[in-house]
């Protein structure tokens, strides 16, 4: 693995995964001490793969995505680990080097459209800026209209300012912007949370089709379990800044190994069948400034054992699924 950033080497999928995240650790420096929002996270993304990430509100998903895309700013900092994208470590690259990668090779759809768009410029002129910065030969107006249609927005809105769009339209405009080029990796943070199910389904099906056609990989953060269930190949379940479980999506859904994953898959209401009261997962998330000793989920875990509050569980490999839980110490092989 080359450590110094070399920009012009042609990337071939045979040389390794598209993206390799290793021991990535991110801390926010605060007056209360450092908040460990991402703790030692490692995973790969293969070319053309669709990776879903789920987890509780505040568990570090957005921070992880920002760290991968090198979009963190103080007081957040990567304190350890590497992000190797197409063979180059992005951590420590200069803005200029990163600028060449962004949009063209890797694009990001942020959780907040309001943060991503410039409020005083029309959508169309922001698309133009992105396209022009990369000196494309494409007809700018034509491409802009194409991507707007792709996400189901009337192209008249290329002339609209961000505040003139509805929440879901802004989200889709951001997805459109991320698809202006054909990047190798598209990172999306809850990109469809403001969409009705019809628009969402159509957008997802079209994104999947594009992905099949063009071969880009997707990292997709969501709270929508049906989305990951239907569209992702692999799934990471995060809890308290760490990877709690990771594996093939179907496997995790059919036989969740971590008690937190189990809770997550039992918590939602349905539009059919009897109306039953639900409780969710009792207890509150760990304080990331001073996480509890042992397993971070132990204080809320229905299957807690005495050892759980003493030993910090490592990741075990159980039948190709990684799980951070002592319940699997016997059957699982220690990972990494």
């Amino acid at each position, binding site marked *: 693995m080359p450590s110094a950033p070399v920009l012009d080497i042609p990337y071939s999928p045979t040389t390794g995964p598209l993206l390799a995240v290793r021991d990535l650790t991110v801390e*926010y420096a*605060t007056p*209360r001490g450092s908040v460990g929002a991402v703790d030692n996270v490692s995973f790969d993304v293969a070319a053309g793969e669709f990776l879903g990430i*789920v*987890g*509780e*509100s*505040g568990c570090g*998903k*957005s921070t992880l995505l920002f760290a991968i895309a090198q979009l963190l700013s103080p007081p957040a900092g990567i304190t350890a680990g590497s992000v190797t994208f197409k063979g180059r470590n992005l951590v420590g690259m200069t803005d200029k080097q990163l600028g060449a990668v962004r949009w063209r090779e890797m694009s990001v759809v942020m*959780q*907040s459209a*309001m*943060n991503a768009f410039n409020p005083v410029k029309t959508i169309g002129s922001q698309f133009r800026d992105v396209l022009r910065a990369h000196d494309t030969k494409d007809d700018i107006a034509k491409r802009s209209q194409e991507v707007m249609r792709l996400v189901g*927005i009337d192209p*008249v809105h290329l*002339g609209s300012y961000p505040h*003139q*769009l*509805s*929440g879901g*339209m*802004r989200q*889709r405009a951001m997805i459109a912007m991320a698809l202006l080029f054909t990047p190798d990796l598209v990172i999306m943070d*809850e990109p469809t*949370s*403001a*969409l*009705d*199910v*019809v*628009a*969402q*389904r*159509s957008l997802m*099906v*079209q994104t999947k089709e594009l992905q099949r056609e063009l071969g880009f990989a997707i990292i997709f953060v969501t*709270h929508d*379990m*049906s*989305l990951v*269930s*239907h*569209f992702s190949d692999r799934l990471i379940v995060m809890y308290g800044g760490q990877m709690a479980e990771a594996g093939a999506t179907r496997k995790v*859904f059919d036989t969740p190994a971590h008690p937190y994953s189990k*809770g*997550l*898959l039992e*918590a*939602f*209401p*349905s*539009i059919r069948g009897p*109306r039953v009261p*639900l*409780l*969710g*997962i009792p207890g*509150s998330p760990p*304080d990331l400034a001073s996480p509890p000793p042992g397993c971070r989920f132990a204080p809320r875990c229905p299957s807690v054992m005495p050892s759980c509050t003493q030993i910090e569980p490592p990741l075990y490999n159980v039948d190709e699924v990684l799980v951070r839980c002592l319940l699997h110490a016997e059957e699982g092989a220690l990972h990494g």
Partner: protein
Amino acid sequence: MAEPLLAAKGLTRHFQIGGIFSRRNLHAVDEADLTINAREIVALAGESGSGKSTIARLLAMVYQPTAGEILFEGRPLSKMRSRKEVLNYRSQAPMVFQDPFSSLNPVYRVSHGILRSIKLHRPELNHAQRLAEAERVLTQVGLTPAAEVMGRYPYELSGGQRQRVGFAQALACKPKIILADEPVSMLDVSIRIGLLNLMAELREKEGVSFLYITHDLASARYVADRLVVMYAGHIVEQGPVEDVLARPKHPYTELLLATVPDPRAPLSDMAGADRGEPPKVVDPKPGCRFRERCPVAVAECATVTPRLRVLGGGHTAACHVAVADTMFIQPAQPSKDRTA
């Protein structure tokens, strides 16, 4: 029957878009009638861009209507002129905004907005009581330890944490109704259930009403009494939530329900991608705005805008083709012209 808490009649809001030479009229909401009773939770769902947030903003006096009237406890909002009256109304009917990234002021700590709401709307409380109250509402939405969260700035919070700060601010007013615009869209299923249970409990114990805007129809079913469905600026269907979900009348509602995914089942290929063009709400012509995507459209749909018709007990839909429940005989409706 008791007077509704909040009632909108013929509510309409248009926006001018485009430059001076290409000025066009965007119909965000056209002639919407909506009532919310005391102790009632009304869910508002529908197509993205159909005017849900615009309705909430009109009800919250953030926007002025182009036409139509809103009554709060029988009083027209248009008659509330003084700052004091408006403030008083906003404390009784606060709004939770859809995008918590733009609705929280970045220069103030979390405590600021909440304490300010309490001070403004509940002047009888002293400083210590205000602090206790602020901690109580933050704890209610699961932001713990509340004392610590209060000292943070919005940018020190995750998306779902910010969203709950917005909700806590509304709670701090001790309101009669909360206009909640997708208040749980950024929350994981477990915390989402907690907030839905909180809404149900507030209604039960304190009689708080809710306008609950959501794309999550299962959650609408879980908490709401009634469901209102919008498409392209029109209310196309409304009725008791179980009734609408079990017997949808409008083809758009049918499409919506057919598309609700079941996370436990594999994706069915059927209702795959509905690739309808986005509806035209810029300078629209009369007629049903769903007709181009509609599987059952008839000639009339292209020329006459359908009005809401009663099709079952308390269940109405705006569709020329939809038929009433067989057990239900439709009473004569006074006709009212509705164009565009």
